[in-house]
């Protein structure tokens, strides 16, 4: 009887997983300034949509560097280029000491960036816009060349003896995504087909991919362009009874876990944390010591190819959202 009551009392709790397990696992990352420079103000304006995991990691890198460098950090974002440009103008009006901008749609951002440069604000571009960065007057660019990253994937697939891949684009019209698939196509000796799916609707992504794998049995690889889509691709392959292996761009906790258990072949990381961290740190270095990382040439943060053997080390960091 008492045993029965005790189990009823405990019925609402889970003895595995959850926050309690996380707390037992984690020690918090501390955030004290390591330098005595004045409190400079830096703004980052990205082209991120809402609730984007990738930009969340960029942000945490930037915040960590800002805490260390005694910097007041402001972040804003808008996926529409016009509104992103307005945010840049707002940051300029706000008299920031440094500006970090991503150039997914460079032409629309040109005016705002030039205005910032004219106002004497040092600008660093991150993530996308490598070609235009210097032309618009930015100090440096930090990011991954998307075509190069795609080429790295193509070569890795050759080494693994793959014959036919499908490249899953989850945002129609995203230039960076097209470039990644183009890069894969450039170096991969086998065939690559593009597949578009609506990234905000996971069941639609899964069923589209399942349909693709059912209609072409020769596909042996699925390349996803974002980590959240990799586990879905694994499910789709299972559902379609296909042997195709999933490989992915970028990383998150779930993808790291599947990398470890072998359901994902490899991941190409562009290290978003580094993009945020280095951008803030570079602006600080420039202001404090007139240093310029990479001598003004683009600083590459990827592609870093991650395989099963890296996974267990990485998991610790993907869990806290910094990888």
């Amino acid at each position: 009887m008492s045993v029965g009551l005790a189990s009823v009392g405990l019925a609402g709790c889970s003895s595995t997983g959850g926050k309690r397990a996380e707390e037992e696992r984690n020690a918090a990352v501390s955030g004290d300034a390591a330098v005595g420079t004045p409190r400079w103000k830096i703004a980052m304006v990205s082209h991120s949509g809402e609730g984007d995991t990738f930009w969340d990691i960029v942000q945490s890198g930037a915040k960590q560097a800002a805490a260390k460098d005694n910097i007041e950090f402001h972040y804003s974002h808008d996926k529409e280029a016009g509104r992103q440009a307005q945010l840049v103008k707002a940051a300029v009006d706000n008299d920031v000491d440094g500006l970090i901008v991503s150039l997914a749609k460079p032409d629309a951002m040109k005016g705002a960036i030039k205005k910032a440069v004219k106002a004497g604000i040092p600008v660093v571009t991150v993530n996308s816009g490598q070609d235009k960065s210097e032309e618009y007057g930015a100090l440096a660019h930090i990011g991954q060349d998307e075509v190069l990253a795609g080429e790295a994937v193509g070569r890795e697939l050759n080494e693994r003896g793959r014959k036919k891949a499908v490249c899953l684009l989850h945002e129609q019209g995203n230039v960076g995504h097209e470039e990644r698939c183009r890069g894969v196509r450039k170096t991969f000796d086998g065939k690559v087909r593009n597949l578009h799916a609506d990234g905000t609707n996971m069941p639609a992504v899964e069923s589209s991919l399942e349909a693709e794998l059912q209609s072409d049995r020769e596909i042996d690889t699925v390349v996803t362009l974002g980590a959240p889509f990799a586990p879905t691709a694994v499910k789709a392959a299972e559902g379609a009874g296909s042997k195709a292996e999933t490989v992915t761009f970028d990383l998150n906790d779930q993808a790291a876990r599947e990398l470890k258990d072998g359901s994902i072949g490899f991941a190409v990381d562009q290290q978003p944390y580094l993009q945020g961290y280095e951008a803030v740190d570079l602006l600080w270095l420039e202001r404090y010591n007139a240093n310029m990382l990479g001598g003004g040439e683009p600083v590459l943060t990827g592609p870093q190819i991650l395989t099963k053997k890296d996974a267990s080390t990485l998991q610790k960091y993907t869990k806290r959202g910094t990888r």
Partner: protein
Amino acid sequence: MLGRPELGAVVGAIAVFVVFSVVADSFLRASSLSTVLYASSTLGIMAVPVALLMIGGEFDLSTGVMVTSSSLVSSMFSYQMTANVWVGVGVSLLVTLGIGLFNGYMLVRTKLPSFIITLGTFLMLTGLNLGLTKLISGTVSTKTISDMEGFASAKALFASELTIGSADIQVTVVWWLALVALATWLLLRTKAGNWIFAVGGGEHTARAVGVPVARTKIGLYLGVALGAWISGQHLLFNYDVVQSGEGVGNELIYIAAAVIGGCLLTGGYGSAVGAAVGAFIFGMTSKGIVYAQWEPDWFKFFLGAMLLVAVLLNAWIRKRAEASR
């Protein structure tokens, strides 16, 4: 029979089915059809209550993000409280019904158009989904709960597969069909069903003949919330981790499915079966394009064109049917 609202949609569905059977070799395989059914069911679970709401003369623009909210609440409550996931599932049901109640109550109290009310809810939920998830989880997606107690049994209910012959049927298909049956019974065999048609046909007339208008409308919003809860739990238990920015835009697809299925945008006319057929057309079209291996750059164009053709066909047949009566 000829006057049934779903007739046009059924003919449209047959047309779409025939087209893809001819152009795509793999479309007719059992495994392919189960994929199509899965895609249709994830839309259909929402399209059915949305259709009922539209028959009742109202809209809901918050449905897409409400599904995401529902799965976020479930996941985060279980995780943060280290509770059995069924506790989170229960809390999520209450919260989701609460959102539906809010929509319905605001509508009948303020007498503002449902377009405005639910647009407000849509924007608020979008913000809450992101803001609260970031505040509570520290990142914009939820933490994994697959290692927690109760996950396996909840997955069995919301996201399992049933093997029938050589095909694996997702359990969402069962939920979908059950909802269609329930909604059809409600509409055609109960007093509440008459109320829904009456309220959508003309609110003032309905009130004059003694239909409880406010209660009916709130009930319809609760029905939508219930659908959102089922869809949300499926998302959570199928993918384990939920991205907080998901769901935006799906509300229009649910409405589109209901309209293809013969629901009038003005209310008072339509059927649950029609909405289900509408979802099926959507599922067939979006996957059929992939099976047919058409050029993916044109994907959205094909989809839009197919939908327009289906709706036009639907309207034409209805006109013919009405003329011949």
